[in-house]
């Protein structure tokens, strides 16, 4: 039987996911409304990067509500939009709840309340995140190959269902 678990709700995640595309769209709009006769080269210099980033951030805003953790017969599947990570139960060595240490050089999509893809942390190294918290109270799934970070809304139920399948 397959069970889906939603991640914890994060108001910060929503706030930043909405704020970033708004700012990216707002910058060229503000520039055009505040200054007259803006040179075309400057306008393009502003519109091209903000436009690209608006599209990217709108995409991540759109997939944010689709984040979920699925427990099927053989695997734990972390999903967010078209992205998914499959963790076979027999590879799970340990599950811990911890606070991760921020590192400024990380990659991935990392906002307060929204962490996706592989992110570098100062204390743990690379962690594949699919979580609604970036640093605090992250559930780390430790396998031989890599670490996964998740934040299920109902941790007790999630753990009970996961333990049942691991055995």
């Amino acid at each position, binding site marked *: 039987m397959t069970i889906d678990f939603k991640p914890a709700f994060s108001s910060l995640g929503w706030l930043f996911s909405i704020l970033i595309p708004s700012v990216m769209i707002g910058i060229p709009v503000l520039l055009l409304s505040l200054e007259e006769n803006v040179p075309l080269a*400057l306008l393009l210099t502003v519109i091209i990067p903000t436009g690209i980033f608006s599209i990217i951030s709108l995409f991540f805003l759109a997939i944010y509500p689709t984040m979920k953790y699925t427990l099927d017969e053989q695997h734990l599947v972390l999903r967010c939009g078209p992205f998914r990570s499959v963790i076979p139960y027999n590879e799970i*060595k*340990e599950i811990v709840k911890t606070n991760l240490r*921020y590192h*400024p050089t990380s990659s991935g999509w990392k906002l307060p309340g929204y962490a996706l893809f592989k992110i570098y942390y*100062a204390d743990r190294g690379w962690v594949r995140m699919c979580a609604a918290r970036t640093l605090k109270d992250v559930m780390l799934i430790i396998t*031989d190959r890599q670490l996964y970070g998740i934040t299920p809304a109902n941790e007790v139920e999630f753990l009970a269902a996961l333990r049942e399948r691991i055995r």
Partner: protein
Amino acid sequence: MNFYVHAVLVTLLATPLLWVIVKGWVKNQYAIFFLYTFLTIALCPFVNLLIKKPIFTSLLFPAFALEADPKTWPFWFLPIALLVAPATEEAVKILPLVLPTLRRKLVEVGYAYGVGLTLGFGFGIGEAWYLAWGFSQKMPDLASGPLYELTGFLGERFLVVFVHAYFTAIVAHGISQQHGLRSYALAACFHALINVGAMLYQSGLISATLASVPLSISLLILFIYVFQLERRIRVQSPVDVKETVLFKRENHNTGRR
């Protein structure tokens, strides 16, 4: 006025970002961030007006019979001029550490690194304001023109704030490891390397576009060094890991031989 607006923007944008970076090093002693930043903000006008300016006007220019305009300087003088800013600024930025109460805190290597970041950051913010003041006097047209004309100033100062922070972090880390002089020399070398493009541009030898090439290369070298250094420090620093084990597999077969 425009330069001041951009100095405000640099301060507002850089402070929270550096706060996040420093927080990881100084643990819970957050007050130190504001204390050190406050202490070093005034050091930029101090070093520029009371140290660098007299070195040039009272010592170097009369000694070599030179004028103040860098375009008139002979090529052999450029390395000498290039070394003045790094040598003086890197020394001045760590001045607050002469206070024994502050110096005693440098025992823990990660903490020392965070303190260095903060000292350099304060200096960088002070420099943004000092240059805003200086440029407003020298370039009144730009100071009252459209705001977007100074985005270059904004970007450069934002970057320089962090570069200053990392220079001083290298020195503070060195002091905590009993090789302060070596680290000071290294930070001054990085500083001089980053200034090469600007110096060649100011002396009219290369264009502004070309000046960004040595700048980019030296920034890359600096950041690679800094990341390596941070990794070394993390190995040395005690990390308070608070974690709860929720599940642990007994006799796990890793599949490795």
